[in-house]
């Protein structure tokens, strides 16, 4: 029996030691993330997170001994965490707003929001007015748009996502005016929902959509007001529903954070941006 007590005691002691060893230094204790010089925490936009993750991996292999953690969670979280010091850098998939002047943005790339339908849906182009009519429930059937006789399944994003904010800003709708049938969180979930339903319509990051189309997802990007939703049109600015992907920070960049931001914005990450179907900034 004593053995059991010893084992439990040993586990507890081990845990205590590990905890103490890995505790942040007192001066940094107020912010769990800002604990060591060789590690960096990024949180925020689920659109930016995969790209930042790839850049982080490349940075780590080029700088052994460093560690860069990338968490998703949305632009709102990126901003909140950067402000509270929970993260060194926030990832934000939109331009900073007027009330966010305390933050500095470091643009990484551009991205557009594309309207997606199932690959079997014949609709190829939508006007802004049609889009609004669909999302407010005015058009409940694809027939109203010259499509099949089938009810439209409106896939919409949950409150707080930057994609939603951009969509609402473009359409001029209030979220309470929309009549969704499915509410989703991340981009990929939107693609999954539309891919599984021939009558669904949704909106996701064009980069993500192109990536998944290339990987065989049965969805199609619909042109908006006659402009095809593609990376080229996002780059040249002709596509109306586009945005900039940013890293943001509350304090002036120092040390590892500055080094990482410089690395991320340099030519050497261009292939990573393209691999995620985002649009590199003009060189």
């Amino acid at each position, binding site marked *: *029996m*004593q053995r*059991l*007590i010893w084992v*439990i005691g040993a*586990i*507890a002691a*081990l*845990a205590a030691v*590990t*905890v103490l*060893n*890995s*505790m*942040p230094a007192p001066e940094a*204790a*107020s*912010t*769990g*993330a800002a*604990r060591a010089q060789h590690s960096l*925490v990024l*949180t925020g936009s*689920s659109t930016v997170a*995969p790209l930042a993750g790839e850049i982080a991996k490349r940075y780590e292999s080029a700088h052994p001994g460093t*560690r860069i*953690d*990338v*968490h*998703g969670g949305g632009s709102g979280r990126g901003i909140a965490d950067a402000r*509270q010091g*929970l993260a060194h850098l926030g990832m934000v998939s939109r331009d900073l707003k007027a009330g966010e002047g305390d933050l500095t943005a470091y643009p990484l790339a551009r991205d557009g929001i594309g309207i997606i339908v199932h690959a079997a849906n014949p609709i190829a182009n939508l006007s802004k007015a049609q889009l609004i009519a669909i999302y407010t429930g005015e058009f409940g059937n694809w027939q109203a748009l010259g499509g099949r006789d089938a009810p439209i399944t409106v896939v919409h994003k949950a409150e707080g996502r930057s994609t939603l904010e951009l969509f609402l800003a473009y359409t001029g709708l209030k979220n309470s005016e929309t009549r969704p049938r499915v509410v989703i*969180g*991340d*981009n*990929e*979930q939107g*693609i*999954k929902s539309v*891919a599984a339903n021939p009558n669904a319509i949704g909106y996701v990051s064009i980069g993500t959509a192109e990536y*998944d189309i290339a*990987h*065989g*997802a049965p969805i199609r990007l619909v042109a908006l007001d006659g402009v095809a939703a593609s990376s080229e049109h996002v780059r040249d600015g002709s596509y109306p529903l586009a945005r900039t992907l940013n890293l943001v920070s509350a304090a002036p960049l120092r040390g590892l954070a500055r080094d990482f931001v410089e690395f991320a914005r340099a030519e050497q990450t261009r292939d990573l941006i393209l691999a995620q179907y985002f649009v590199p900034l003009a060189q």
Partner: protein
Amino acid sequence: MPARNYLSRDTAAAALVWSAAVVVAALFVWLTGDIVWRGAAYLTWDFLTAAPQDAGRAGGIGPILVSTLLLLAVCLAVALPLGLGTALLLAEFTVEDTAFARAVRRSLDILAGIPSIVFGLFGYVFFVQVLGLGFSILAGGLTLACMVLPLLIRACEAGLRAVPHEYRQACAALGLSRGAALRRVLLPAAVPGLLAGAVLGVGRALAETAALIYTSGYVDRLPSSLLDSGRALSIHIFDLSMNVPGGDRLAYGAALVLMLLLLIINATSAWLSRRWSQGRIVSV
């Protein structure tokens, strides 16, 4: 009532009971069969040890398994001593209805029913933000510990209560101190219950998703300390199936691994408690 009537009703009832049993079994076979069938291909050493690539569409679950085990270790290291101590106090050291014991008991009753997402919210505010642990395995493990504590205490207490009263009287007659009586007699006798509780807790913690999203985070790489974020296996399944198109295939693999882990844990607990209960007291 004529026997004939009973007979026909009995037949109908038997048919009902059997069909319910068949329905349940069929649902079970459908579910597990689907997961085993589509997940079996991924049950390889490579899958278990490799790091995930391309957001989990390729590669394996190695670092995720490590994170999961670390989460469990933190959870048990905190919950076991705390749970054992509380159970001892409740079962051996207090009169059933002192106000203190009653309050603790009632509190634990309610705690046992609190949904895991609420534990997650609590962990997010308390461990992640107030204690400044950040999104870390430590914060996740501590949240899990709070969650499994009532289970653990209940099982420990049941184990202690199953020890015959005569043992305690014998200890008292021998002039043993309470501490000695605990160490020499009561705890060994209660081991099956303790183990059952620990295993139950591990099972619950292993299956948990909602309590971990906002405490241990999403990072799918090998953690280098307990203050690093780590992705639990269940969160990996959630992420693959919800957020990664083309992630379903590997989600099946991860789901199968998780189910097998739980199966092994349950089987071990059954085996252990059988073994321990065989004459453990006599041999000490």
